């Protein structure tokens, strides 16, 4: 059996059966990072109609290891995964969980995220690695905006993309946030507001950059046969894909195209048996306004240089033909640092029909795509409420 055929046999074999945030998200100086994890796990497990004692597979990335999470939850997991390739790690872990569940290495998998990204409660200080310490920090690089801006100015140079077009991404995403009671930023936003906001590092003003919040989130997965006994309508994992290209931005072959994203998307679409035209709903990791357009281009959904058109033409907004980032995204809903768990939670809720005023009508097939680092790593999911 070829590897591709084998992956296809895993399509729809596992379901997302639970998904939730921590009790609160936003600015939470009274809660540690570990508390955010534990609240998220408890809430997601309850959402599934299961108990924490049912969990035997723990998947997490960030400062707390899956072993620590098992200890804090008071369980001894049969299976752990601490893959850490940036904010998309949680998306990639869905694929890893599919494999582990399929082979019986665990029966109930929890993927958990908790990060006190804004308040820094219970967080160890970060240190430069030898590579960033030698080749980036001495020039003033520090943090994602000083790196992702390079990708963005190169895209503007090669394709003529404008600051107004990037701003449209923030505006589209805010329209969704205004419909999500859990979103941090819900006031109306215009392109002019984005262009007039505080300059941080050209080409980014502060409204081109995601929020910095404290938040936890978790999803629960189990095999399809068991999923039918859970509390909510199962969401089938039809396709998964992952890829990595570089870590240091100087090593990215083409700053305007994410090879990691292309690899992840191709694998996920092939496993699911879908094309880039089949989706009714899309969740893209939006740490910066330029991220989602580049992801659409790297996934083959938009032609190169044309990803911004999806936002400028209003296709991505409420009532549009292709809703994108319906939770309000990292730009307006929440962004604790490693955002990747939240687009999975939102896609699950949309496919269950739980989204109230922001519910996308008749949604059947949802795409989740996230990046780690500076488009360095990528994870793609194809999720559906039908087999």
């Amino acid at each position: 059996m070829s590897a591709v055929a084998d992956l296809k046999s895993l399509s729809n074999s596992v379901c997302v059966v639970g998904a939730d945030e921590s009790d609160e998200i936003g600015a939470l100086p009274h809660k540690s990072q570990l508390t955010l994890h534990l609240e998220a796990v408890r809430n997601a497990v309850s959402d599934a109609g299961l108990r924490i004692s049912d969990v035997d597979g723990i998947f997490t990335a960030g400062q707390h290891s899956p072993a620590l999470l098992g200890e804090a939850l008071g369980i001894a997991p049969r299976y752990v995964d601490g893959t850490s390739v940036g904010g998309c790690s949680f998306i990639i872990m869905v694929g890893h969980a599919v494999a582990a569940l399929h082979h019986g290495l665990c029966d109930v998998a929890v993927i958990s995220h908790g990060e006190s990204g804004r308040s820094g409660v219970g967080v160890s200080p970060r240190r430069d690695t030898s590579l960033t310490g030698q080749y980036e920090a001495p020039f003033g690089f520090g943090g994602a905006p000083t790196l992702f801006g390079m990708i963005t100015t190169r895209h503007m140079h090669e394709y003529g993309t404008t600051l107004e077009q990037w701003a449209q991404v923030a505006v589209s995403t805010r329209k969704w946030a205004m419909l999500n009671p859990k979103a941090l930023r819900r006031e109306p936003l215009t392109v002019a507001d984005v262009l007039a906001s505080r300059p941080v590092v050209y080409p980014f003003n502060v409204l081109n950059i995601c929020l910095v919040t404290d938040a936890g989130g978790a999803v629960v997965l189990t095999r399809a046969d068991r999923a039918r006994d859970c509390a909510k309508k199962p969401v089938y994992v039809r396709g998964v894909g992952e890829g990595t290209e570089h870590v240091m931005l100087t090593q990215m072959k083409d700053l305007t195209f994410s090879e990691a994203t292309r690899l992840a998307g191709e694998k996920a679409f092939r496993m699911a048996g879908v094309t880039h035209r089949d989706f009714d709903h899309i969740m893209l990791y939006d740490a910066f306004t330029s991220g989602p357009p580049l992801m659409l281009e790297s996934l083959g959904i938009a032609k190169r240089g044309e990803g911004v058109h999806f936002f400028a033409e209003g296709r991505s907004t409420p009532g549009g033909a292709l809703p994108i980032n319906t939770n309000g995204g990292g730009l307006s809903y929440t962004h604790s640092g490693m955002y990747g768990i939240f687009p999975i939670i939102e896609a699950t809720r949309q496919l269950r029909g739980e989204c109230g005023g922001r519910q996308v009508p008749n949604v059947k097939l949802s795409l989740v795509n996230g990046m780690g680092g500076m488009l360095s790593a990528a994870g793609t999911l194809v999720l559906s409420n039908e087999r």
Partner: protein
Amino acid sequence: MEIDRPIPSPITPEAKPFWDGLREHRLLLPKCGACGHVFFYPRVLCPRCHARDVGWIQASGKGKLHAFEIAYQAFNKAWKVKPPWVLAMVELAEGPRLMTNLVNVEPDPKVIKCDMPVQIVFSKLTDEITLPLFEPTR
């Protein structure tokens, strides 16, 4: 130059020739003895053919501005350079790209253009450390 920024740290053994060269105003780049690939950052094996036969060449110090940003605030506690300043990714004539600052230029996106020709400026930070900065070619 006063110490207005983080000193490169930790300097790793495989990168020592790079930092030693800069102190002597020479930009050295790793080159694979087996396949001829010139690369950066320094590693003990060639990222193209994986040979362990890595030597060093002296680069021209010329290149093009591949991408840039203009910073309006510090992003690191040790950073004391007054904003705005220019963050840059330079593509060297020999092929590799490196992160640096573009200096001796107006920090204005109307002036700074991707692919503009640039040349190295050796900027002494301490007796041990000289940084490779770049300026527009005159």
